[in-house]
Every structure is written in C-alpha cells, then in structure tokens.
C-alpha cells in the first residue's frame, strides 16, 4: 500500500468545484510535485492533506490511517509555507524548538534536535538571530528545519521558493532535494514553476482546473504530454493543426505536406483536425538528415539567449518556435528570411484536449 493515498478527493467552495476526482498514491520516500497555474487547485489539495481544509468528499490516508477527521495538530505532518511563516517573536533556535516544546519533549532533547537541525541547514551560527535578521533564503531554510524538527511522516512544501530571488531559488531547490533524499521523507511540493517541478521531482502531477491532467515522471511529462494543457504549461511547445488522412496508419497533412506519424493518430476520423505538438528543440532550420518532414516559412524574429538561439518562424497561419544550439561559426538567420523548417514526424505528439 502506498504511504500517502488520496482517492476521489473533492472540494466545493460556494457552489464552485475547485478540486474534482483527485487520485494519487505516493510511495514512502517519494518526492511528488503538484504543478499548475494559480487557481488550479493544487494548494487546496495540499491544504486538505495538511488539514486546513475539509474535503467535500474523498479519502486521505497517511501510512494507512484515515486522517480526514484529524485536526492539523494531530496529523504529524511538516509544512513549509510560501511566506516563510517563521514566528517573528522567536529566535531561529526558538522557532526550531517550537514543535518539540509543544510536544512536551525534554530540554536536553530539544537542545540536541535544534543543534542537529541547525547543522542540517548549515546555519549553526545563526541560532540566536531573529527572523527579520535573516535573508529570505535563510528564513526558508529555517522554516524547512522547523518542519523537519518534529520528525514528521510527511513533508508538505507550499511554493516554498516563489518568494525568493532567482539564484537562491536554484541553490535552495538543490538543497531541499538533498535533505529530502538524506532523510528519505515523503514529500509533496506545490509549485507553478515547471523548471522546479522538472528538476526536483520523482513524479509530477500536472493540475488544471481542479483536476489532475497527467501524472508521471518529469521525463514522461515533458516528452509525452497527454493534453494540450500539459504540453503548453510544461516547457515551450508549438501546437500544429493537422488534417487526418488515415488515422490508423498515422497519415495526415500539414500545411500542404503529407506526413506520416508512424503510429496511430487515435480515435479520429478522416478529415478531422488533430492537435500535434512539437518541442522547439525537436525542429531545426534547413534540411537535416533524419528529419524528412519539411515546411517553408518566414523568420519573424530571432532571440539570442546565449547557448541557445530561439527563432520564430511563421508557417502558414502558425508561428513556430525553434531552438538550436549556438555555433560560433554559423550566423543566425535574420527576420524576413525565408527558411526551411525540418523535423522528424515521429517527434510530433498527438494531444487530447
């Protein structure tokens, strides 16, 4: 049995269904992200797991125990909030000690744990500081340590990095993942940042309008998005509209060119329009070996991003983004140039709506 089990979870607010039929099984020690735009219900699910919201229907089990009717302070969960939520009237050490003190632990035990936690987040010297004397990144590390100090069964992270500067965000996400691996603690991480979700998670749940659109490893989510939403939310993607010629054989036409996907197009009829996704890095400019599909278009603009050059090309009515690696010897195209876009048809992804 999975360590955290959520089944048929549902939440209604004043007639609005904000979470619908949500199912998830998380294994012991797994790191799972909820990814989605704001208002998609990801935080609501997390808050139901924490016990701050009561589900309208459904089941939540932690370690085999139904927790729906338990108050937050009875669930033995650790949580880190977006806005740090450190107690401003306590020093770092006092913040770390809070959960232990409340649990009635002995002074010696509290002291030892606080020391251990300070070491874990590498802030040994700052135990006597007050939260306002710390940087945002330091505060969030303290918040993490505070949550971990009570040795929770489950760790919930509610957008813990979104209030931080870009650089600290990257270093802290590595640190969080390292600590999580070390402690082998089952973790749910809520974020709207796809890069965070992709880089940190064992598995990702992409959420959209209260429902889980797709559940999978970062590799699956990125490379085999199931819906148009997942494809567009995770990374940049081009959506092309093809006309079905022969669904089982995978034949379709795209801007006059006849192409073959090499596999079934799914439950569609001849003449239907089908949405096909193409990652910017899957297509290239000019003719390339192994990329038989070719479309002609006009360069709209060129963004030089350093190691990558992103070119937007207008093909028919559609604007395509193409990424290629920078090569010192090759000058990028200029706006207005007529270019060839080539790709392997097998790289196209068929999207459900």
């Amino acid at each position: 049995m999975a360590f955290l089990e959520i089944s048929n979870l549902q939440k209604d607010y004043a007639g609005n269904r904000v979470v619908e039929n949500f199912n998830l099984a998380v294994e012991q020690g797994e790191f799972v992200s909820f990814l989605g735009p704001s208002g998609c219900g990801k935080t609501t699910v997390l808050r139901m797991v924490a016990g701050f919201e009561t589900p309208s229907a459904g089941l939540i089990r932690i370690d085999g125990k139904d927790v729906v009717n338990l108050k937050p302070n009875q669930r033995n969960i650790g949580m880190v909030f977006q806005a740090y939520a450190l107690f401003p009237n306590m020093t770092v050490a006092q913040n770390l000690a809070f959960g232990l003190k409340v649990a009635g632990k002995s002074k010696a035990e509290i002291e030892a744990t606080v020391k251990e936690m300070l070491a874990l987040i590498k802030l040994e010297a700052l135990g006597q500081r007050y939260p306002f004397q710390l940087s945002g990144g330091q505060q969030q590390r303290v918040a993490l340590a505070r949550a971990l100090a009570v040795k929770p069964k489950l760790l919930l992270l509610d957008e813990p990095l979104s209030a931080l500067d870009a650089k600290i965000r990257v270093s802290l996400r590595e640190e969080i993942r390292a600590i999580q691996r070390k402690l082998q603690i089952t973790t749910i991480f809520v974020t709207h940042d796809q890069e965070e979700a992709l880089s940190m998670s064992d598995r990702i749940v992409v959420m959209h309008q209260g429902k889980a659109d797709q559940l999978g490893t970062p590799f699956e989510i990125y490379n085999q998005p199931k819906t148009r939403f997942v494809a567009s939310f995770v990374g940049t993607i081009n959506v092309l509209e093809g006309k079905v010629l022969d669904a089982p054989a995978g034949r379709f036409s795209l801007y006059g060119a006849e192409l073959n996907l090499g596999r079934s197009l799914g439950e569609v009829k001849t003449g239907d329009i089908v949405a096909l996704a193409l990652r910017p890095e899957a297509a290239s400019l000019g003719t390339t070996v192994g990329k038989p599909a070719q479309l002609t278009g006009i360069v709209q603009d060129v963004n030089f991003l350093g190691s990558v050059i992103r070119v937007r090309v207008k093909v028919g009515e559609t604007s395509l983004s193409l990424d290629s690696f920078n090569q010192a010897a090759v000058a990028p195209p200029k706006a207005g140039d007529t270019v060839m876009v080539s790709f392997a048809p097998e790289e196209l992804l068929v999207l459900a709506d």
Partner: protein
Amino acid sequence: MSAIAEPTGVAKTPTSNPSKSRRSMAWLGILPFLIFALLFLILPTLNIVVGAFQNPAGEFTFENIQKLLQPSILASYWISIKISVASAFLGCLIGFAIAAAIVLGGLPAWVRSPIMTFSGVASNFAGVPLAFAFLATLGRLGLVTVLLREGFGINIYAYGFNILSFWGLTLTYLFFQIPLMILIITPALDGLKREWREAAAILGANGFQYWSMVALPILWPALLGTFALLFANAFGAVATAYALTGSSLSIVPIVLFAQIRGDVLQDPHLGYALAFGMIVVTIIANTLYLWMRARSERWVKS
C-alpha cells in the same frame, strides 16, 4: 543613486542656491511649528514643572511636593490611578474580545464596518454629553435604573450602585475606552498572519499554545501601548467626571480643576504640584510602556 547625491537627501532643484545655504533654509521650514510647540505646549508645561518647585517668592523648595503627601491628596491620586487602571484594563479586555470576535470569531463580514465606524465615533464621545448620557441611563431616574426597578424589581441603588462612584465613573469611561481599543487593536489582529496559526497547528500546537506562545507575544507591544494610551486618556479626563459627579468624587483632575477654578488658590503652588504630579504619573506610565515594549519587541526592526 548618483555619486554626487547630497548627504541630507535634499531634492535637486534646477535653480538652487549653493547647498550650504539651502541646508540652513531647510531648518527654517519647521521653525513656525517649533515656535508654536514651544509657546503653547512645551513652555506652559515646563512652567508648571518649575512652579512646583518654587515658593511664592520664587525660591526653590520641595515644600509643594511635600504637601502632596497629605492624605486627602494622596487619596485623590490613588482613586484616579485606580479608575484609570480599571477603565484601561477593562477597556483593553472588552475591546480585545470584541475586536477578536470581529476579526477571528467567524462573524459575518458585514458586522465589521458598522462596528469600526461606531468605534470611531464613540471614541470621541468623551466629555460633558457622555456624562449626561450615563446620568440619563444609570442615574436614579435613568432608563435602565427604572426598567430594572419596575420591570425586575431590582433596585441597583439599593445594592450600593451609584453612578457618582468609582464603578460608575469607570463604567462611563469604558464608553470611549472600549471603542478606542477596538480601533487600535483591530489592525494589529489583522496583522496576525494566517500562516502563523497554521504553522503552529501543523507543528502540533493547540489553540491555547498558539495564543500563549505566538499570537499574544506578537500582539503584546500593541496591547501595552494601547493600555498606556487608555490610561493617560482616563487619567487626564476632566469634563466627563466633572459633569457627572461635580466635585463629589475627588479624582486628581477635578481637585486640580477646583484649585484653578475656585481662584481660592490660597496656595497656588500646591496647584502646580498637583499638576506636576499628574505629569509624573503619565510620564511614569509611558516610560513603563516604552521600556516594556522595548523588552518585548527585540524581534522588530528598529
């Protein structure tokens, strides 16, 4: 920031004089205010303070201060302080309860706005009319007195209640003390972040532990400050007490009022000493407040 930014942060004007003379001009800008404050606030107060240590001939003496130690005057200070503490304490307690009910008590949102508006108004009801209102309500012929007597057979005056007493005055003062507390503490309660409560809960704390370890310590400075303000508010109030009790309840401001008014002033310098005593009490109260706030607010950015 430009490298030649002036140290005083003086705005750059195209047609400016050299910065030196502009600096001295800047001083002049608040000169009218300083002169006004000196003439009508600081000097009059200092004058009283100095007067308290002078005899009629203008020589330095402790005699006036010593006269404060006579039993009747000490009693006035004592009852004044008692009323001020009682009305400030009860004002804080009840005001806090009502504010907490509005902010955290799960009451419908629409109750908040009328209560805040009413508090704004009622906190300014102090003075002569307030005394009339309480006389008309809890005096011997007042509405509540009569209702209780005729409707329920309870004669509150037979039970020893008197509007012209310590509790009567305290009850009256609460009419402006409670709203003042609500006005000041509601924003402070709003400032309690939801995440603090949630973080405490998820760490295993119950409601009592959250309040005693997190919320109250955070609110403590605001509570202290309001208490000090309410104390000073009640301690210096003359009009309400005078209109309510005449001079039958000899709290310090009324004794002082009578001293000045009566023009008896057989001993004008005793008046200065009385006033000086009032200043000392309010200064002690405020110093106590500042000291305790500094102690409890180490965690706040200075």
